[in-house]
């Protein structure tokens, strides 16, 4: 079976700086794949390249064998590859439920004119979005704060809301941007369960993350970046014992003594 998402020799240069250099890996349907690496390894850039928020300098990203690099971000979302952001990126002046409802955009059957005129398709859309939003709220344990203004939420809930917004689009692949950042152990474990729940909904998960214990716990496979290059790929166990990875994270002995 061909992989769902293929990252093929993707390179991004900013002027003289090569942020991502010929990175290649595949994502299989239904897996949880994490991209990790030290600060400045190019994780976030790679993330933006896959979701098409940045253009690749060379190489390409394929989804179901079809090239999605260079498409506008909303077109990539239409294909089913949806990214989340870190916690501050939500619709602040809407309620939690409205955040989720508006994010059902890709499931619309009615046209803009249809919504204006209130056609039958528009009405059934609105009803359906409301039902689906309630289901997502329940799934993420947010049902009690559905009416709360999003800007009033504490950090943990914001993260969940970000995932809720992603789920509302009904994606094939959900890209999570540092879902565990700044969380304590309990919150992290809860989020790990949540991400597993997302996978159980039939969604492939690709996440970029710092938090090593969480990544080791949750991932089927891990891709490690360092200075924009892929230095390792494998199961959590393989990665844990990979010398290059240990070196990248801890620095080699030579570096440590300054030679």
């Amino acid at each position: 079976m061909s992989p769902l998402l293929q990252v093929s020799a993707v390179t991004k240069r900013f002027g003289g700086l090569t942020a991502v250099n010929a990175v290649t890996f595949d994502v299989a349907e239904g897996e949880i794949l994490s991209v990790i690496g030290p600060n400045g390894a190019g994780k976030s850039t790679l993330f933006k390249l896959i979701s098409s928020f940045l253009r690749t300098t060379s190489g390409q990203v394929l989804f179901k064998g079809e090239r999605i690099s260079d498409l506008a971000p909303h077109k990539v979302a239409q294909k089913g590859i949806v990214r989340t952001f870190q916690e501050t990126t939500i619709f602040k002046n809407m309620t939690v439920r409205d955040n989720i409802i508006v994010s059902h955009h890709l499931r619309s059957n009615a046209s803009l004119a249809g919504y204006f005129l209130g056609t039958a398709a528009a009405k059934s859309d609105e009803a359906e979005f409301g039902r689906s939003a309630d289901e997502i709220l329940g799934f993420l344990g947010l049902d009690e704060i559905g009416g709360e203004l999003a800007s009033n939420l504490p950090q943990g809930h914001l993260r969940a809301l970000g995932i809720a917004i992603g789920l509302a689009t009904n994606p094939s692949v959900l890209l999570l941007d540092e879902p565990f950042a700044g969380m304590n152990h309990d919150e992290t474990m809860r989020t790990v369960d949540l991400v597993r729940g997302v996978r159980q909904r039939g969604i492939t998960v690709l996440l970029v993350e710092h938090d090593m214990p969480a990544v080791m716990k949750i991932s089927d496979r891990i891709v490690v970046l360092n200075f924009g290059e892929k230095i390792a790929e494998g199961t959590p166990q393989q990665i844990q014992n990979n010398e290059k990875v240990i070196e990248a994270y801890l620095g080699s002995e030579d570096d440590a003594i300054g030679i």
Partner: protein
Amino acid sequence: MSRSKQIIGVAAFLFGVFVLVPLMIKLTGRWDFYYTLTSVALLSIASAGVWLTFYIGRINIGQGAYALVGGYVSAILVVKYGVSFWLTIPLAGLICGCLSILIGLPILRLKGVYFAMVTLVLTEVAKLTALALPITNGAKGISSIPLPGAISIFGLTIIPDFSQLASTKLAFYYLAVTLMVLSYAGLYRLVHSRIGHLCRSLQQNEELASSIGVNISYLRVIAYSVSSFLGGIAGAVFAAISQSIYPSSFQVADSINFMLNCFLGGLGYVFGPMLGTLVLYFGWDLLFTTGKFQLLIYSSLLIALMLALPNGILSLRLFNRKKAEP
């Protein structure tokens, strides 16, 4: 807010505008009020357009340009091509809408103060274009535009010929107010449908909006062209009322006023620009007696109002019902 309350509110408003105001004017004999109120109604239509661009997160100081274009389109069609004035109202709106798509496609990529600056220039460009083109007759403008003719269907006169009327003031008042009611009803529907929801997603975070699959540049252009449509029809009727249009009919100051109307009324309320226009227009007139201090007092009051009520007059909730809380 319950549905019945909403209906009562709308009915009271319509009654006030269509029955009470003409009655009061008849009783007090202040016929000059018709002109003022007609102007307020038309300016509030143009302001409604500006409000919609605010709703997608853009500061629009260029509505004067579209009002001017709308006025010229109507005047030229009526005077040079003998088109019925009634037909030129939607035509002026449509031409402005199409024009704004061409202009909006490149400039709507800009945000914040950059978009505002470009739109500010638009009004000046429109004025200079009107001065330069032969069809707009340069600085002399187009004057003695004939009054609107009659509309009849199957021999039944729906709208009488304005030149046959004893007083055109009342007729123009009804025309302007009807258009205002229709515009605001349309705007209200737009904002409270899913489109309004999507517009707010744009206003709050364009990046996130595109990540959930919203075609942000398409939606921006749609909103901007609806905005310009409203500017165009307001300009068209204005030209008909004053029976003339000049390059200076709508200037930068007007564009700024359209924006101020929205600020003053409240950016979060559909009916904000309507109230803002009324208060601003009458406020200026009332201060006329202060002579040379008029502008000073007026500006100081505006600054004070914005400091005290950053969310506009409607945020006071003087009316026990929440107006158009999105």
